């Protein structure tokens, strides 16, 4: 192996390492409701890095508008709170799950079917972007 090749390889490894360390998403799914009702998207967002990241926007050509929300049941009334941004602290994990944090997806541009996958683009304040496949599940999914 030439020196140049060695350099290239270590650079590649470094780049890959950096990519691995950035925020990751698992268990991403959308609860399908009929018509054009707003939908909720759920996921687990993990930050393996020692620096924090802030989720500032989520977008997809499939929806007109996507907001970050949190359900509140604290005053005995089921309500929602829209969050302009969500900080993901170092080595932290935020679960978007039923009854808590969720993405609120407004206005479908195309009809959705159960079982299909929708790509959502997560944008962070430092310019980092993550395209995440969300699985469309039945209304009765849990």
């Amino acid at each position, binding site marked *: 192996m030439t020196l140049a090749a060695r350099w290239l390889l270590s650079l590649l490894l470094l780049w890959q390492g950096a990519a691995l360390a950035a925020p990751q998403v698992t268990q991403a799914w959308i609860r399908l409701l009929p018509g054009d009702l707003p939908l909720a998207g759920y996921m687990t967002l993990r930050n393996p890095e020692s620096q924090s990241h802030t989720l500032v926007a989520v977008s997809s050509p499939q929806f007109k508008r996507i907001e970050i929300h949190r359900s509140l049941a604290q005053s005995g009334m*089921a309500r929602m709170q829209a969050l302009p941004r969500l900080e993901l602290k170092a080595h932290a994990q935020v679960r978007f799950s039923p009854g808590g944090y969720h993405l609120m997806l407004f206005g479908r541009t195309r009809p959705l079917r159960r079982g299909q996958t929708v790509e959502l683009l997560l944008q962070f304040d430092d310019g980092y972007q993550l395209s995440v496949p969300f699985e469309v599940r039945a209304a009765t999914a849990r």
Partner: protein
Amino acid sequence: MKRLVWPLLLVLALAGCGDSASLYRLRDISALLPPLALRLHDGDNRPRSGADFAGQVVLMYFGYTHCPDICPTTLARLAGVVRQLGAAAARVSILFVSVDPARDTPAVLRAYGEAFGPRVVALSGSQRQLGALAKRYRVSYGFGPADSDGQYEVSHSSAVFIFDTRGRARLLATASDSDADLLADIQRLLAPAPVATR
């Protein structure tokens, strides 16, 4: 110390004539709320009343279809628990009462109810009918301001009211109750009344 004795005695005396230990795991509300009675319409715009559900265990929940998280989560949970009943599920009705009739037209209600399976009946009514029902079961709801798209949030009670096969209000379930408790109590409500033996 002495001053505490009298109120304490009063408390004991009055608590004594209260409810005995409940057989149920959810909160027992027997004798607290009136029997099932409602005047609403369903997804086919047919008038529905409490009598339509005679012989059924009824789980009643207040919400609205434009609620993406809490309402579908609650309905998915109730439908999931009821499915576990097997054949007995046919004797349970889950009533989703939309307090947002302006957006929840019969067509929307119908599609919404169907998405959660055969045991869910989505209902709504005029503000007067809904107000009367909410007052009857002592729940509150309210509307938030509309955004630029004319969308608005609706705050609503998060409780599930459970009625027995004779329409009597019996139990109250909340999000913190487990599926297992919910299932066990519905099964108990469905069980035939124990026959007195000698």
